[in-house]
């Protein structure tokens, strides 16, 4: 056991523990500030948080629902890990998720029924991942070729994706039944059953996507820490100039990181539509992308750290529905909490950095005293 820990953390368990403590403190602070906000609005914070916990853990179905909800969050978050580790701040996961889901839907409706049963879900997921990759490639290539600030371009790509989604669902992709009945609710037809992901539990809509997501987290961990491509992506993220000096094509890896990140967000959308929803509706998975970013930050941008983080935020999201129903505190509370988590987590970083550099000074080994700090960038 001890040797496993040492292998995982390079024998430096304290250096792994301190960030964990910082992040826990950040989360608790966010909950405390959130409690003050709720109290100021006349709601009882204890009651609200209690309803949240009850909503997530009250019954076994609720608990499985947490896993269903956490699945797309995890896929988005591991994509965000790739981008942030590669030095690109991909805020566009929300749009990449929508585009992935809508493309998977279009593919499933067009070709799903004519494919063999083993291939249909796989091909549908691939279509979603490809579309998400394309949606990530655009800001990626713009950053690489024209030095366009990716935060702003990905935010804009989100807004474009939202409009594209409404346009498609109320026009070219609208459910023929909605047209026939004259109701014209903007939603797609139901996906052919052959493209659905296998169900694990009917009431909570839990599907095999949860296994796919955890598997992908491991794949991304291997990619980032055990392959040359991953090494180069991280090198570019740590220090662009040093990476360039080492002969790495920095531009190419910036674009690659955003594209891979988009692929995973697209996969998240495809998994959610083929696993849980089985059709695209207006308002599909709204906020899942942003939640995924929060999950990634909370998991300290580590794909395996994202697994428990996705679970925790699944608890918040499922719990919030219950909270709204039973104590009439709107689900928007979760967005407030997520914003606070982001703010506190990035603010806590300075304490971790200071602790690490003080410790480094104490251990004083001249040859390794050059601490590489992540390049701060816009």
């Amino acid at each position, binding site marked *: 056991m001890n040797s496993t820990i040492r292998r995982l953390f390079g024998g430096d368990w304290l250096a792994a523990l301190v960030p964990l403590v910082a992040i826990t403190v950040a989360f608790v602070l966010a909950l405390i500030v959130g409690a003050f*906000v709720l109290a100021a*609005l*006349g*709601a009882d914070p204890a009651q609200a948080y209690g309803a949240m916990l009850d909503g997530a853990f009250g019954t076994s179905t609720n608990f499985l629902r947490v896993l269903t909800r956490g699945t797309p969050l995890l896929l988005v978050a591991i994509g965000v890990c790739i981008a942030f580790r590669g030095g690109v*701040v991909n*805020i566009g996961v929300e749009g990449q998720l929508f585009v992935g889901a809508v493309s998977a839907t279009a593919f499933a409706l067009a070709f799903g029924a004519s494919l063999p049963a083993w291939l249909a879900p796989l091909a549908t997921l691939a279509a979603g991942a490809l579309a998400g990759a394309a949606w990530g490639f655009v*800001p990626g290539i*713009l950053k690489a070729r*024209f*030095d*366009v*600030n990716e*935060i*702003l*371009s990905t*935010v*804009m*790509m*989100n*807004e*474009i994706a939202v*409009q*594209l989604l*409404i*346009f498609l669902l*109320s*026009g070219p992709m609208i459910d023929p039944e909605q047209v026939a009945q004259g109701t014209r609710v903007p939603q797609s037809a139901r996906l052919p059953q052959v493209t659905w992901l296998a169900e694990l539990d009917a009431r909570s809509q839990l599907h095999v996507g949860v296994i796919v997501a955890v598997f992908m987290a491991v794949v991304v961990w291997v990619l980032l820490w055990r392959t040359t491509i991953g090494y180069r992506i991280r090198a570019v993220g740590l220090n662009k100039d040093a990476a360039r000096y080492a002969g790495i094509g920095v531009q190419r890896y910036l674009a690659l990181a955003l594209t891979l990140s988009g692929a995973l967000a697209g996969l998240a959308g495809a998994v959610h539509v083929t696993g849980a929803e089985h059709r695209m509706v207006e308002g599909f998975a709204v906020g899942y992308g*942003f939640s995924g*970013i*929060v999950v990634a*930050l909370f998991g300290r941008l580590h794909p395996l750290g994202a697994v428990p983080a996705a679970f925790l935020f699944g608890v918040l999201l499922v719990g919030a529905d219950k909270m709204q129903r039973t104590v009439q505190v*709107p689900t*928007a*509370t*979760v*967005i*407030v*909490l*997520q*914003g*606070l*988590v*982001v*703010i506190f987590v*990035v*603010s806590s*970083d*300075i304490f971790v950095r200071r602790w690490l550099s003080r410790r480094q000074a104490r251990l004083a080994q001249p040859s390794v005293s050059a601490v590489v700090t992540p390049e*701060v*960038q*816009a």
Partner: protein
Amino acid sequence: MNFGEILVEALTLTLLYATPYLYSALGELFVQRSGVLNLGVEGMMLMGAFTAIFAIAPAGLGAAPLMGVLLAAAVGALMGLAAAVVNVTLQAEQGISGIGFSLFGLGLSSLLFKVLAGGVIVASGFEPIHIPLLSDMPIIGRIFFQQNLMVYAAFALVPISAWVINRTKWGLQIRAVGQNPAAADTMGVNVVRVRYTTLLLGGALAGIAGASLSIALTGIFQENMTEGRGFIAVALVYFGGWSPWRVMLGALLFSIANNLQIWVQILEVQIGGQPIPPNLLIMVPYILTIAVLIFARQRKRLEPAALTKPFQRGEN
């Protein structure tokens, strides 16, 4: 309406809809000139928008419109102060902390909207002010001199900002801190204080921008009613090459893009004999932003050298 009347109406709306961009982008300009990137503008605008309409609505506090704007500015400044603590004192990564503030503002404004206003709020704020003599001029009078107070103030802010940045001691300090904080520090300029003040100002102006959207333009509040305008404002500062006058041009350009439906009507644009779907028109400002950012690359040399770099005395 005939062609001429619609054109006049469209130009009038262009000035009106440029207003939120002007307040938020000019505020962001001060912040960026001091070397800080505030990406929380969106959240600050949303909080300002709700605060203002809740302050003046009969169902809310029933205050005077100007009081609504002041309260929105105060709420924005408070968020700016929080952003200063996080970005300046705690040296957090500015791109990510800003997303946190935007999420926080989105969530809290939606929460307040539901809890305090029950999900519906309407209020008419500023009436158009007819400027004597000038407003009687044909066409020009209608477009330029029958706007409301918030519009006049927004455009007045352009030369004022240019003057403050380029001609005052404080403006010089802001520029020095944004270009070379270490040098400014050795000259006795308090880098931290300058950045705190620009973030307070930027927050207040973002709050006012939100107020102009809710009580001077639309008269309502809706969840996420800014629809990315706060982020567009940040892009406008890049596009404007950190100059207030060029930021104003950008604001007018985006205002036209926002009201594209009217322009399409005037110019009778059609695709294959069909009207263009509205969602495709709504996309245009966002596509335009990306195009503008590609174009703004040539302005990179104007970028404050210390932008997004936290200042730590003795490290540089």
